[in-house]
């Protein structure tokens, strides 16, 4: 099992998952926050926040998931009232109508919550709605592997840059 960590998001990945944890570059006064992509297929470098450019590559047996952080101004809002990330989804939580891009055969689920004092959404896409009974346990394996550090701990986190940079 590979462990990947950045921006306070840590994942001990189940076998077969790729992961990419990053922050978008900003211009001027823009602020960006952590985005974590997880997939059972190679994640393209230019994947959109919610899977644009990646979900079209999915095979029926694939999974794509996003853990997307919102800014601190979202804290306390009703949308993020749920405390804690979902850890055990059901097959019935996935529906063909819950998709950012309605590709035939796929199904999605989306949850909003606050984890470790940080507002997030978790969005997952199954390559085939018909295979949800097989794929949802893999999504749950991924969810159980995720941990999120508080914003304070993340702010003081070490840099991965080379000391020569």
């Amino acid at each position, binding site marked *: *099992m*590979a*462990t*990947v*960590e*950045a*921006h306070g998001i840590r*994942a001990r*990945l189940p*076998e*077969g*998952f*790729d*992961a*990419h*944890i*990053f*922050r978008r570059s900003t211009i001027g006064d823009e602020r960006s926050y952590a985005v974590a992509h997880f997939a*059972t*297929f*190679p994640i393209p*470098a230019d994947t959109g926040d919610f899977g644009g450019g990646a979900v079209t590559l999915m095979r029926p047996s694939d999974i794509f998931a996003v853990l997307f952080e919102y800014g601190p101004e979202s804290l306390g809002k009703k949308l993020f009232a749920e405390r804690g990330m979902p850890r055990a989804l059901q097959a019935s939580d996935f529906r063909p109508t819950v998709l950012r891009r309605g590709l035939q055969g796929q199904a999605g689920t989306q949850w909003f919550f606050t984890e470790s004092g940080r507002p997030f959404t978790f969005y997952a896409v199954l390559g085939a709605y018909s295979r949800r009974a097989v794929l949802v346990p893999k999504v749950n394996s991924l969810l159980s592997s995720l941990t999120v550090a508080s914003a304070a701990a993340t702010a003081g986190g070490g*840099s*991965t*840059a*080379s*000391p*020569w*940079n």
Partner: protein
Amino acid sequence: MLALVVTLTVVVVLLMVLVAGLLRSHADILRALHALGVGVGDPAGRPGATGAPSGPTPVTIGPPLPPERRSTTAPAVAGVTPGGDARALAVSGVERYTLLAFLSSGCSTCQGLWRAFASPGTLALPEGVRLVVVTKGPELEIAGEVAAKAPPGLQVVMSTEAWSDYEVPGSPFFVLVDGAAGRRVGEGVANHFHQVADLIRRAMVDARGPVEHTASTTHLDGPARESANDAALIRAGILPGDPSLYPRSLEDVFQGTAVRGAGGSPYQGTGR
């Protein structure tokens, strides 16, 4: 009589000493060959071998690798991108091959490979093979220089742990992983990508096993080749005694294709 007995005894003793010396010399030679990695029998099945999983050994290219490299495990590759993002790539438990190219920003031999990767269309990688460049981590590599060398679209992960996991002796070094089998199937040193392409072809053929219906591709000979040919003919519906096996003329062999020229030869093309 006594002298004869004594003489024979001395001769026998000398012969015993000679045989003992030869056996000891033979043992020394075998020990030296083993130390060089040239063993007798199947290295993969050698009893007592530590860290040597069962299964075929990887196809190799380049100079012989140190004999203590015995593992065929293929752990996931996790590290950071040159831009500082966290990245993890699954190489096992997936239905594809992954070619890991262990390069560095400073190695002179690697420069040609970095340039080759800028033109992925010219690499002629078989379908289903994912190329990933792995450099050492930012504590040992200069991320900015790696970023400058990495062409757009090339997957690059900086991970010192991966170099350790794959027992990389130095750069450039290549490892081909069969994701479905979850193990390395090819590895070695290459200075030019065409050498790597050859490694991939050989390793993929080796991993798939011989094609039983084509004797030539399995390099069979003798009775084994005959049996393989018989099996292929039977599968095609040609049983022993079939008339097609006993042509009486060239017309029987080249049905419908023979064209007779003025001289009557079927090989003179259009003729008149």
